[in-house]
């Protein structure tokens, strides 16, 4: 509920800024706004993922219109946080921060990123068409905002979806994907696991994939969560343990060595017809629908993630772009213009067609989009409701995710029992939170 109020305040603030400058608004154009900044170079870190490839194809147009140069450094996800933290600590070159939703607390608390209102309130820089309310509220809140302030605009946006091989399902006598996790395990699991094929693959490699795609995905639908209201661990609660036990039980229908599966392995297992279902990020749709990388193009089905006893709590992930405080005034302005442009309503369709996943509601309402991009209905449904703190987004997450990754995989490997693993994580997680000052009232309980 808190989230909703926060969002209203955000939207109101944005609206205010537009109301204040109605006269200049009408005359605004990117070319004019960028004029003072022609020749500026802005540095940004990109990942090796489809959304970034799409953006890279669009950048030349921006550069031509503005005379601003966008200098992109490609990087695997697993290096991107460390690289950016070191750059910000060092006062380096980056002018734009690429923020995974779990990094935002960290970046905001360190004041490495500039609140967007600085630019939204500047009539020279703010595009009157910015329209923050057009972003799915969940994405703007989770990917771009911290403590009631907008920092970043949602750029590379994901929801977890259920991708399935409809041919395999049909053969086994199912006319659609499972509605609930229970069904998936108890009905689909046994029928689809045979002859070297498996019903399901849950990427669980010991990196952020373990925390986000495997661990968190299993606790939320069963009513579990990382933290309770006092920020004590909720992992040893009955609900959380049920979810983790469920995951353990589900492993019998997954390929051997699932703890070594990262996204690529899971997607490929589905693409090669080795598994019948995976829960993966929406951004994998193009990979699975492309005959060059997938052998199941004609059998590919997409649905929202199954529901648990606590409802549908699909995995939530995504990146926003924010202006870095270490940039000088000119670079900041240029960076803002780029962020605003690449995430704009106007460009959303092009971004989508090139393989990106925009968070603009308007683009998904356009005619024909759902037919061109068959994953859209499931995505839109998933974004209606979700948990922004699917993984806590505070500054302590980098430390906590390491703990979850270690004990989460050890749990799956059977080196420790689910209860032991959960209490190990709890103990260590609380030590980190204690150290950070959440328990003696030094720090507001934000996640």
């Amino acid at each position, binding site marked *: 509920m808190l989230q909703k109020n926060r969002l209203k305040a955000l939207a109101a603030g944005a609206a205010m800024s537009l109301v204040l400058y109605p006269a200049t608004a009408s005359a605004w154009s990117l070319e004019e706004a960028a004029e003072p900044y022609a020749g500026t170079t802005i540095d940004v870190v990109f990942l090796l993922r489809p959304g970034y490839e799409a953006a890279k194809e669009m950048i030349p147009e921006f550069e031509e219109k503005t005379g601003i140069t966008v200098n992109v450094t490609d990087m695997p996800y697993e290096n991107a946080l460390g690289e950016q933290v070191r750059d910000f600590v060092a006062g380096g070159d980056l002018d734009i921060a690429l923020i995974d939703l779990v990094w935002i607390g960290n970046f905001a608390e*360190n004041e490495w990123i500039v609140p967007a209102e600085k630019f939204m309130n500047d009539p020279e820089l703010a595009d009157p068409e910015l329209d923050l309310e057009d972003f799915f509220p969940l994405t703007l809140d989770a990917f771009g905002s911290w403590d009631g302030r907008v920092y970043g605009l949602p750029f590379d946006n994901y929801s977890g979806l259920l991708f399935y091989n409809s041919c395999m399902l049909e053969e086994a006598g199912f006319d659609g994907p499972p509605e609930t996790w229970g069904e998936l395990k108890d009905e689909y699991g046994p029928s689809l696991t045979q002859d070297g094929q498996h019903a399901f693959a849950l990427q669980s*490699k010991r990196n952020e994939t373990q925390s986000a795609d495997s661990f968190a995905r299993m606790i939320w639908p069963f009513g579990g969560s990382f933290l309770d209201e006092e920020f004590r661990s909720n992992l040893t609660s009955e609900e959380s343990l049920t979810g983790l036990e469920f995951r353990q039980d589900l492993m019998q229908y997954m390929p051997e060595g699932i703890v*070594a599966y990262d996204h690529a392995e899971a997607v490929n297992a589905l693409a090669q017809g080795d598994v019948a279902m995976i829960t993966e990020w929406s951004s994998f749709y193009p990979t699975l629908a492309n005959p060059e990388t997938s052998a199941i193009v004609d059998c590919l089905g997409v649905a929202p993630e199954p529901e648990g006893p606590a409802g549908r709590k699909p995995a939530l992930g995504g990146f926003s772009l924010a202006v870095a405080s270490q940039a000088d005034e000119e670079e900041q302005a240029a960076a803002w213009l780029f962020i605003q442009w690449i995430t704009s309503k106007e460009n959303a369709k092009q971004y989508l067609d090139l393989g990106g996943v925009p968070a603009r509601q308007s683009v998904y309402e356009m005619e024909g989009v759902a037919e061109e991009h068959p994953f859209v209905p499931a995505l839109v449904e998933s974004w209606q409701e979700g948990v922004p703190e699917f993984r806590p987004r505070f500054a302590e997450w980098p*430390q906590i995710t390491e703990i979850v990754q270690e004990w989460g995989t*050890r749990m799956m490997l059977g*080196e420790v029992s689910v209860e032991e693993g959960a209490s190990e994580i709890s103990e260590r997680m609380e030590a980190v939170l204690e150290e950070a000052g959440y328990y003696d009232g030094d720090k507001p309980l934000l996640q």
Partner: protein
Amino acid sequence: MQKLRQETQGFGQAVPPAQSAELIHTNTISRGTKFGFLGPAVISLAVIGLAPLAFAIWTSLYNYNLTKLASMRFIGLANYANVFSDSAFWQAMGRTFTLLIIALPVQIAVGMGIALLLHRPGIGFLKTITRLSLVIPMATTYAVVGLLGQVMFNLKYGVVNQLLGFTGVSPINWLGVPEFAFATIIFWDIWQWTPFCALVFLAGLTTVPPEVEEAARLETKNWWTILRNVQLPFLIPGLTAVLILRTADTLKQFDMVFTMTRGGPGSSTELISLLIQRVGFRAFDQGLASAQAMVLLVITIVLSRLYIRFFYREV
């Protein structure tokens, strides 16, 4: 060992250290000259090597998190206490030494076998090719070895399982099962460094004076007797080098494992360098990582001291 060492020295008399000349020599060299020769190297290594070390010692006494520099504070030896009580640290240390203890004897034994094989006369052409082939593993970039491991040991696309399949073995999940992943790391370590051992020993074997070796061969046909009594003394220096370098390099081992398994699955291949990297660069707890690094450094220094004292004559 003591006896062997004396024998080595005995054989090594070909170049005797000129003790008497040294005394005359020493008196004539000014401090300035000595400094001129040594100074640049000492100063540069001190600046480059010691300055970061001092900095690391300093951070190890602080609660020093890269993402929370604002709340940095002095905490004395708390990080060290954490290291000593942290089972993860000692498990990683244990894995590192397990790797050393399993891989090194294999490398030495097989390396010795290859060296002896190459040392025998005959089929010179094939032996030249073998010698050249031995250079390849040790020159291969360590990170590439790990990447190659991902490709070759992959459960589905890997050639290793395909080859095993020809012999009737069903596919093994090399990188997905903890024990197998550790075995894969041992395999690559052996692949990369057995040739190194072989070349070192081969070089040692060629230093045996031919007449000594031939005389021994007239007396016995037993290759083991010859190896033990005649050749081994000449191999001791090389063996020492192998021990020191392999120990140090195993404690440093990072690249290959990082690129192949990143320490996984679970923690099964998380060697000590990977653990410290994770704490310092991923959890950003630089204070703790520095303390861990210091403990590792002390262990390294003690070990190399022991080795050098044990095997080396003084400088």
